[in-house]
């Protein structure tokens, strides 16, 4: 058995834990109290969960077998959902690029433009896409256009931020080389920043497309086009077998998009 005093010049071993201050202790207590209150407030109850099992079983029973009655309209709605995601992502990515350049500290032509771009991206990102969809449904009417616009805005918030970060992290050496030869800012961005940030751009864009596919399903619930509305109607009319078909279709679409996107990622990077 060895003692602390075995180590020359050491009277006592280092503390296992750091001592916390009064302020930190109060903060921990407040956070814990709030969490317990939140559990209580949200009605988390094991009894209700267990009691809900038979009901869930009944629902699944009614869902099986999935209905094949409305395969064609469901198929078209699914296609529309993907088209919304695709168009929204492509337009959003294209618009993100110039905004992201303005939001990159060493590339932005002016501090005012930099802050404007940063704030715009932050604003687009903090407002959820469902809220954007509600706004566009009111302004351009029900249908896929509203959903597509919501995706465009959401992608600017998402890609704008990640594109700017990717450009900020690029190696400055090649950029210095172009500056030294007298190239202007635009040439510098096109010739050295974009090529260096391209893998990150592609990765972020493909991930965006996957995310947009999932969210375009939800957007339908507020009437912004796509398959979401079909799902809502089926559920509201207790056509659970039809709802099952729709859920399986959504599942298949999301898996397909993810597979293709990871394949493209491997090919392009």
């Amino acid at each position: 058995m060895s003692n602390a005093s075995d180590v020359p010049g050491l009277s006592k071993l280092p503390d296992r834990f750091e001592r916390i201050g009064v302020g930190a202790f109060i903060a921990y207590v407040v956070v814990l109290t709030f969490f317990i209150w939140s559990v209580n407030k949200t009605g988390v109850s094991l009894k209700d969960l267990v009691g809900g099992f038979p009901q869930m079983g009944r629902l699944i029973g009614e869902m099986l077998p999935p209905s094949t009655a409305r395969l064609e309209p469901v198929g078209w709605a699914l296609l529309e959902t993907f088209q919304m995601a695709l168009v929204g992502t492509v337009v959003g990515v294209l618009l993100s690029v110039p905004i992201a350049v303005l939001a990159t500290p060493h590339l932005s032509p002016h501090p005012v433009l930099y802050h404007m771009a940063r704030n715009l991206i932050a604003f687009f990102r903090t407002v959820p896409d469902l809220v954007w969809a509600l706004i566009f449904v009111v302004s351009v009417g029900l249908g896929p256009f509203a959903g597509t616009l919501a995706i465009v805005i959401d992608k600017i918030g998402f890609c704008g931020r990640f594109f700017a970060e990717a450009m900020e992290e690029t190696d400055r050496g090649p950029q210095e080389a172009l500056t030294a030869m007298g190239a202007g800012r635009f040439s510098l961005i096109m010739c050295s920043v974009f090529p260096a940030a391209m893998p990150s751009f592609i990765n972020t864009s493909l991930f965006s497309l996957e995310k947009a596919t999932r969210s375009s399903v939800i957007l339908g619930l507020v009437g912004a086009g796509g398959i979401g509305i079909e799902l809502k109607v089926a559920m509201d009319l207790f056509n659970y077998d039809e709802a099952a078909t729709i859920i399986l279709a959504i599942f298949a679409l999301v898996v397909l998009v993810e597979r293709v996107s990871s394949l493209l990622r491997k090919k392009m990077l």
Partner: protein
Amino acid sequence: MSNQFSPADLIVRGLTKSYNGHPAVLRGIDFAVSAGERVALIGANGAGKSTLLRCCMHLIQPDSGDVDLCGTRLEGLSARKLRAVRSQVSFVFQKHNLVPRLSALTNVLQGAIPRTRFGSAWFQGLASEALRMEAMLCLERVGLTHVALQRADKLSGGQSQRIAIARALMQRPRLIFADEPAASLDPVAGDEVMSLFSELVRAEGLTMIFTSHDLTHALNYADRIVALRGGVVVLDAKCSELDLKTLRALYE
């Protein structure tokens, strides 16, 4: 100072530079380089060689002092005019600084950006026959036509530095700055790069200023040596008047 060459391509007067709060890196540098001259800048690590080269192109803004580059005073120049002056000077870096993911040919071609129509020298796929041919000729002069379409980040260190030299030639410069062009290479590749560099500079009649830690490179490839120590010029003499022993003593 040698006056056999004229007029001066670079005149530096009273140049000072310090990085926020730290002791000054450069404390009043004066020297001039005549057209066609090859000058080696030597000095210990941190002597301010790289900072001086960058200050001479205003890649780093000096605190005070004047720089006349290719006959133009850099102080107070507009961004556009500064770019025009820079376009006459090629800068070769210690770490080649090629754009990764782009082909060797595109990297060389980009040397023509400052002197060609907007966008016409961005990528080899979009460039004119004449420009592509010129870029291939530059590659030929560094002996690397066979890697033209390879990605820059797949090349060896020595090859990359030769591509960087080809890019410098593509710029059709009047002056070449090189910041330890051989330092990141093994001795053999380093010697190859330096002798290639020196031949090309001589053949084109260019002015060259390079920094080096290799004193034999300095003696073999320069006409004149300028030594920095503690931010000032402590030696400025023709190579013919210098030997290794004298130069070594500067580092002690």
